[in-house]
C-alpha cells in the first residue's frame, strides 16, 4: 500500500482567520481581494480558442427576408459563421415552455435577438465581423403595450385566479373556483357592502440585473465527442440539458460546470443557457474551444429583466381601516416568450396579500406578450411587484380615513384567527406583529412622525416622509419538483474534506454556509473543508440556485451526506475500538467516546485501511408543500420569512431629488447560520430594491429598442445613495418553526422588498403637500422626474381643493 500523506496545513480554502464561526468570511474572500478568484473570462484560455459574437435584430418584430454572410465570413480573423440552419438538434432554449429559439429562424421577435453567430480569433474581430452581417427584414406590427396585449389576448400563458370567500378561514373548507364563475359576484357584493371602497392602478417598472460579470460561457471539446461547458449560470443542469438538446446529444455527453458567478440575482437562472448552447454549437462546428462573453450593451438589450407590472386594485374597508375585501389584478409584461413568466406571475399573486389578511379576495394574474426580450427571474421573482398594490392601498386607506398608514397596516396584519392566505395556506406563526412592535419602538417611529409633521408644516420646498412597511415572503419553489437537492461529500485519508452540492455560488455565501454545516457536523475547523466547482457530473439533476432556497435545500443535502459518513465512522469505530456506539461524537478534530480519543486524521486512516467508504451522497426534498393550480389553493410554501423596515426620506419638491436619511430594519432569519452573511444579504437586498424603486429606469423608444443599455444611462445605486443612517438587526429568539437546517431561514430574496418602505416614505412626503388629506399616485421607479410630476399634481389638486382627475386612488362613487 502506498503511504498515506500527512495533511498539509493550509488556511485558504474555507478558512477563517477571524472565526467566530457565526461570522465566517466568504470562502473566496481572499481570492476576491487579491484578484486571484477566477471567473470564466479570467481562466487560462485553451489553445486555439475562438470568440463568439452575434448579429442581432434591430427590429422588435420582423420577418427575415434575406441574409448575406460573405462580408462577415471574409472579415479578419473569422473562422466560422453560423445560423439556425447549422443547429443539429432543437433550435430551442426555453426553460419551461418552448418559444425561445437559440438563433432566430425566419422571424425576429425583439430588438437584440441573436440571428447569426460569428466565431473569430478575438472578441473584437468577432464583434466587428458580426456588424458586417447583412440582413434584410420585412417589419411586422409589434406588441409593445402590455395592457393592449391583454385586451387583444396576446399572452405567453393563460391567466390564473385565486379566490377566497370572506368567511372561509381554513384550507379544509376551501372550495375550488374556476374561471368566470358567479363567485366574482359575491366579491362585488362584498365590496359594495363595505363602508368604503377605493380603487387604484399603478405601473411598477422592471429592473436590469446588472450583475457585474456579464453573461459568459466557455465550451470545449471533451472526451468521446462530448462537450464541457464552463458557464456563469445559476442552473448548470439546465445548461447541460439545453446544450444536449441543441446538439442532439445525450445528457451524459455534456458536463456543465460553475465555480462562481460575478452576480446572478435571477438573471442567470434560465438565460445563461443560451450562451452555453451557442458556444457548444461553435465547438461542434469547429472542433475548437469557444468563448462567448456578452458585451454589456448586448447583454442588456438581449436578456430579460425583472417583469414590469401594471397593477389594478379595488379594496373595501370599514371605518377603522380594516379590509373587508380586495380585488387585485396583476398584469406582468413577460416579453416575447414564456421563459419563467408563469411562475413569476404566480409568485406575484401569492404575494398580493403581503402581510395582510385581505378578507374576501380575488387575485388575478395576467401574462402579457410584448415584443421585447423575455423577462425572467429577478430576486423576489414577481413577489415584489405583487406586494405593491396592497401597500399602495394601505396608504390610500389611511389618507382616506385620516389615519397614520402604520396604523392601517397594523390593523390588517395576519394574526391568530386571521391567518389564512387567499390561496388557503395558514400563516403560522405570523411573526410580523412582534417585528413591527419591536421596530416601531426601536426606530422611535411615533416621535419622528410628530417631528416630521411639524417640519413639513414649516418647510416650503423640502418635505420629509416616513414609512414602515412589512414583508412576508414565502419560501420554496412554487414548482414543487424543484424543491430537491443533492450533495456529494468525500473524506480523504489526510483528513481533508471535499464537498460538492447542486447549488451555485454567485456571491450569496452559499458555499461558505454549506462548508460551515459540514465542519460543524464533523467537528472540524472550516480550514479542513473545501468546496469545489458545481458540476453536473458530480451532483446530477440539480435545481437552479434560486427562490432563496440554496442553503435550505443544499445545506440539508450536505447534512444528510455528512450524517451518513459520520454514521459509518461511528459504526467502524465502535467495532474497531470496542466502545459503545452511542457514546461517540466528533468534536475538535477528534473522535470522542467513553475512554476514547482518536484524532480525526488517524480515524480516517484507520477507516480507510478497514475498507470503510469515505464518500457519500446526500439528498433532500422539502416536505409538506403542494399547490393545486386548478383550484388556486394549496400550501406552496414550507414557511414564511418576515421582516420590516422604517425609512425616512427628504424630498425636494421643486426638483424631485431626494435623500434617504435613515433606515431601520428588523429581519427574520430564524436561527442564523452566519450572521455576517445574513446581514450582507439583507443590506444588499435592500439597496437593490432601493435601486429598483427609485433610480433604475428602463427606457425604450417607440420601436421597442432599449435605450438604457449601459451603466451610463441605467443607474444602479452607488455608495452615495445608501441610507445616511443604516440600522440593521436580526430578529432573535425565533428559530424557524419548521425543521430547516439548524432552524435557519432563507434570506436571499425577502430583504429586497424592505425597500418598499422608501417608496412609501416618498409617498408620505408627497402626501404632506395635501396636508395628508389625499394620497398621491407614484409609479416606479420614483425618479426625480416622476416625483416632480407627482408633487406638481399634488400641489394642483390641493389648490383646486378637489379630487384631481385620473390620479389614483379615487373613492368609487356609490
Amino acid at each position, binding site marked *: 500500500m502506498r503511504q498515506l500523506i500527512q495533511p498539509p496545513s493550509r488556511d485558504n480554502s474555507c478558512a477563517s482567520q477571524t472565526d467566530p464561526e457565526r461570522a465566517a468570511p466568504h470562502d473566496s474572500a481572499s481570492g476576491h481581494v*487579491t484578484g486571484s478568484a477566477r471567473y470564466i473570462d479570467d481562466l487560462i484560455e485553451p489553445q486555439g480558442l475562438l470568440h463568439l459574437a452575434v448579429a442581432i435584430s434591430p427590429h422588435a418584430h420582423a420577418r427575415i427576408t434575406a441574409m448575406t454572410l460573405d462580408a462577415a465570413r471574409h472579415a479578419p480573423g473569422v473562422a466560422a459563421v453560423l445560423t439556425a440552419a447549422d443547429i443539429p438538434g432543437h433550435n430551442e432554449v426555453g426553460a419551461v415552455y418552448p418559444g425561445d429559439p437559440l438563433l432566430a429562424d425566419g422571424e425576429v421577435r425583439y430588438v437584440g435577438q441573436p440571428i447569426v453567430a460569428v466565431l473569430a480569433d478575438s472578441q473584437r474581430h468577432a464583434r466587428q465581423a458580426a456588424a458586417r452581417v447583412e440582413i434584410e427584414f420585412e417589419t411586422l406590427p409589434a406588441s409593445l403595450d402590455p395592457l393592449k396585449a391583454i385586451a387583444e389576448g396576446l399572452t405567453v400563458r393563460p391567466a390564473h385566479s385565486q379566490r377566497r370567500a370572506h368567511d372561509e378561514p381554513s384550507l379544509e373548507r376551501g372550495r375550488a373556483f374556476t374561471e368566470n364563475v358567479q363567485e366574482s359576484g359575491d366579491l362585488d357584493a362584498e365590496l359594495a357592502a363595505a363602508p368604503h371602497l377605493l380603487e387604484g392602478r399603478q405601473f411598477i417598472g422592471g429592473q436590469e440585473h446588472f450583475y457585474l460579470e456579464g453573461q459568459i460561457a466557455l465550451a470545449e471539446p471533451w472526451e468521446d465527442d462530448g462537450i464541457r461547458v464552463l458557464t456563469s449560470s445559476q442552473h448548470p443542469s439546465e445548461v447541460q440539458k439545453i446544450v444536449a438538446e441543441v446538439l442532439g446529444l445525450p445528457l451524459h455527453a455534456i458536463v456543465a460546470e460553475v465555480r462562481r458567478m460575478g452576480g446572478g440575482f435571477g438573471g442567470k437562472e434560465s438565460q445563461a443557457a443560451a450562451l452555453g448552447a451557442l458556444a457548444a454549437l461553435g465547438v461542434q462546428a469547429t472542433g475548437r474551444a469557444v468563448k462567448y462573453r456578452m458585451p454589456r450593451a448586448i447583454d442588456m438589450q438581449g436578456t430579460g429583466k425583472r417583469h414590469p407590472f401594471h397593477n389594478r386594485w379595488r379594496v373595501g374597508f370599514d371605518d377603522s381601516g380594516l379590509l373587508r375585501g380586495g380585488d387585485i389584478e396583476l398584469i406582468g409584461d413577460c416579453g416575447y416568450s414564456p421563459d419563467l413568466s408563469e411562475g413569476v406571475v404566480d409568485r406575484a399573486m401569492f404575494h398580493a396579500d403581503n402581510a395582510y389578511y385581505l378578507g374576501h379576495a380575488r387575485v388575478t394574474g395576467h401574462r402579457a406578450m410584448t415584443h421585447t426580450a423575455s423577462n425572467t427571474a429577478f430576486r423576489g421573482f414577481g413577489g415584489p411587484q405583487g406586494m405593491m398594490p396592497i401597500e399602495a392601498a394601505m396608504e390610500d386607506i389611511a389618507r382616506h380615513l385620516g389615519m397614520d398608514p402604520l396604523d392601517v397596516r397594523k390593523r390588517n396584519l395576519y394574526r391568530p384567527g386571521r391567518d389564512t392566505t387567499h390561496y388557503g395556506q395558514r400563516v403560522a406563526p405570523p411573526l410580523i406583529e412582534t417585528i413591527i412592535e419591536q421596530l416601531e419602538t426601536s426606530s422611535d417611529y411615533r416621535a419622528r412622525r410628530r417631528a416630521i409633521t411639524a417640519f413639513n408644516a414649516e418647510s*416650503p420646498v423640502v418635505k420629509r416622509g416616513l414609512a414602515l412597511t412589512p414583508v412576508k415572503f414565502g419560501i420554496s419553489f412554487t414548482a414543487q419538483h424543484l424543491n430537491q437537492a443533492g450533495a456529494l461529500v468525500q473524506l480523504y485519508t489526510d483528513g481533508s474534506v471535499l464537498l460538492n452540492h447542486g447549488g451555485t455560488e454567485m456571491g450569496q455565501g452559499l458555499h461558505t454556509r454549506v462548508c460551515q454545516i459540514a465542519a460543524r457536523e464533523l467537528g472540524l475547523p472550516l480550514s479542513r473543508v473545501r468546496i469545489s466547482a458545481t458540476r453536473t457530473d458530480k451532483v446530477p439533476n440539480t435545481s437552479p440556485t434560486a427562490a432563496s432556497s440554496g442553503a435550505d435545500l443544499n445545506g440539508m443535502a450536505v447534512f444528510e451526506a455528512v450524517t451518513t459518513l459520520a454514521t459509518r465512522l461511528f459504526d467502524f469505530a465502535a467495532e474497531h475500538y470496542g466502545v459503545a456506539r452511542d457514546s461517540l461524537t466528533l468534536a475538535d478534530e477528534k473522535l470522542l467516546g467513553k475512554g476514547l480519543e482518536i484524532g480525526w486524521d488517524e480515524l480516517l486512516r484507520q477507516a480507510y485501511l478497514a475498507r470503510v467508504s469515505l464518500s457519500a451522497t446526500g439528498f433532500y426534498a422539502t416536505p409538506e408543500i403542494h399547490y393545486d393550480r386548478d383550484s388556486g389553493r394549496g400550501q406552496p410554501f414550507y414557511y414564511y420569512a418576515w421582516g420590516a423596515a422604517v425609512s425616512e426620506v427628504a424630498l425636494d419638491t421643486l426638483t424631485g431629488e431626494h435623500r434617504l436619511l435613515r433606515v431601520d430594519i428588523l429581519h427574520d432569519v430564524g436561527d442564523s447560520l452566519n450572521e455576517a452573511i445574513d446581514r450582507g444579504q439583507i*443590506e444588499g437586498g435592500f439597496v437593490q430594491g432601493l435601486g429598483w424603486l427609485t433610480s433604475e429606469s428602463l427606457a425604450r423608444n417607440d420601436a421597442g429598442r432599449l*435605450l438604457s443599455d449601459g451603466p451610463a444611462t441605467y443607474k444602479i445605486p452607488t455608495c452615495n445613495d445608501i441610507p445616511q443612517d443604516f440600522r440593521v438587526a436580526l430578529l432573535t429568539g425565533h428559530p424557524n418553526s419548521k425543521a430547516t437546517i439548524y432552524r435557519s431561514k432563507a434570506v436571499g430574496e425577502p430583504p429586497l422588498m424592505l425597500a418598499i418602505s422608501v417608496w412609501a416614505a416618498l409617498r408620505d412626503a408627497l402626501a404632506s403637500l395635501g396636508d395628508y388629506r389625499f394620497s398621491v399616485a407614484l409609479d416606479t421607479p420614483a425618479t426625480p422626474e416622476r416625483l416632480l410630476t407627482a408633487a406638481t399634481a399634488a400641489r394642483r389638486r390641493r389648490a383646486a381643493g378637489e379630487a384631481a382627475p385620473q390620479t389614483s386612488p379615487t373613492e368609487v362613487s356609490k
Partner: protein
Amino acid sequence: MLSFTLNGRSHCCPDPAPGVTVLALLRETLRACGSKEGCASGDCGACTVAIGVQHEDGVHYESANACITPAQQLTGCHLVTVEGLARGARLHPVQQAMVDHHASQCGFCTPGIVMSLFCLYHDARIRKIDDHAIDTALEGNLCRCTGYRPIRDAARAMRAVEWPLEPPETPPAAPHDSGGGWHCPADLAALRGALAEHPEARLIAGGTDLMLESTLGLVDFETVIDLSRIAELGRIEAQPDGWWIGAGVRYARLEPLLDEHYPDFAALLARLGSRQIRNRATLAGNLANASPIGDTPPVLLALDARVLIDGADGEREMALTDFFIDYRRTALAAGEFLRAVWLPRPAPGQHLRVHKLSRRPADDITAVLLALRYRLDDAGHLHEVRLACGGMSPKPQRAPTCEALLEGQRLAAETLEAACAALAEDYSPIDDVRGSRDYRLNAAANLLRRHALQLYQPQATIRLEEIDACAS
C-alpha cells in the same frame, strides 16, 4: 516600445495599437486578469487601477478606469493593479479590511474597489480619510451585492495598519513616438507639426470620451495625437483677472482652484463623472466635445469664459458663446486645437449658482442643469445676468430672452414667472433617456424659482444636503 512600471517592476512591451486600453493590455497581452471588465465604458469601476506619478509632495496614486485608459499613456508611469498589493500571504491593509468586514460577495467588483481604496490609502495628497473622502473615492465603483455599508466600514478601518510602499523600479527610457499611429508630441511646436502632417488624427487628452469609440463602437483608430505630455498644456496660468487653464489640465487639478473661488462650480465638478473620470478627463475635452449634456459648458457660458485656439495658422481667441456652432460642432477648423480656457476671476458682489439634476446624485449625466450668474445691488436687483442651461438644447447656449427679463430686476414673483416662461422660448428640449421635454422645462423653471427662494428667503432650508434624519 512601451515602457512603464508594473507593480514595482519595470516593464517593456511592443507598442500597442492606439485603441488598445490598459485593461486589454493587462487581460489579453499580459494575462493579468485580476482587473475585471464590467462595462468597457468607464462607468462601473470593476477595472480600476492605480497610476502613480511622482510629484514634489510625494507620489500621487490616481485611480483610473483601465477599460478606457489608452495603454500608450502608461509610458513612464507606475501602474499598480490588484495583483501587486499583497506581499506573499500578507494582505495589504485595504485587502485585509475588506475581508474582515465581509465587504465582498460575488467579488467581481472587488478588485476595482480595492484599487480605489488603495489610492485613498496611499495618495500623498489625502490627509484625512473621512466619510466624504470615502464616498468620493468609491463613487465610480458599482457594487451590486453588498449595499456598500461593509465596504465603507472597511475603508474606515484600513488605515489602522501601516503599510509603507517600496519605491518602484524606474522604467527604462525607450523611444516612444509614432508607434503604430500613436503620436506623442512634447511641445506645442511638435503638436502643430503633427497636426499639419495628420489633419485627420484624433486628439486625445484623458480619452474618457474618445476611447468609447474604440471600446463600444469598435472603431480602430489609425492616428492619435496625445496631448498629455505637452508641458504648456498642463499649466494653470494665474493672472490678475482670471486663469488660463491649459487643455491638458485634468479636472482633479482644478478642484482646489474651484473650491476656493467658485464653490457652486466645485460642487458641480464633484458630481461630474467619478473620481476615476476626474483623474483623467479635462475641462477642454468637455468643451471640445460640444455635447449638449456636458456639465461645464453652461457654467463657463454663464461666466463669460473664453477659449484660445491654436494651429498652423496661428492662434485666435474667442468667446465661448461663439465656440459652439451646432450639435457637437465647434469653431475648431482642421489642423486647429483648443489650447486653453479662460476662466475669469469672480468680480466683487458676483454670484454664481449652479444646480444639476440627474437621476442619481453621483456619477450621472445631466438631465437638466442651470447656471446663473449675476451681481446683486443693495436693493436686491440683479445685474450682468447670465443664464445658461444644459440638457435643453442641441448645443450649449445661453438664454437671452430670460437674461433680458431678469436684467436690472428683482426676482420677484412677476418677473420670476415671466423669466420661467421665457425659458420655453430660449430652449426646446427633447424627450430622451434622461428625461422628457416637459420635465426639463418644468424642472429648469423650478431651478430658477429655487434660486429666488435662496436669494430672498435664505432662512428656509431648501438644500437636501443640509438635512439629517429626525433625531430619536
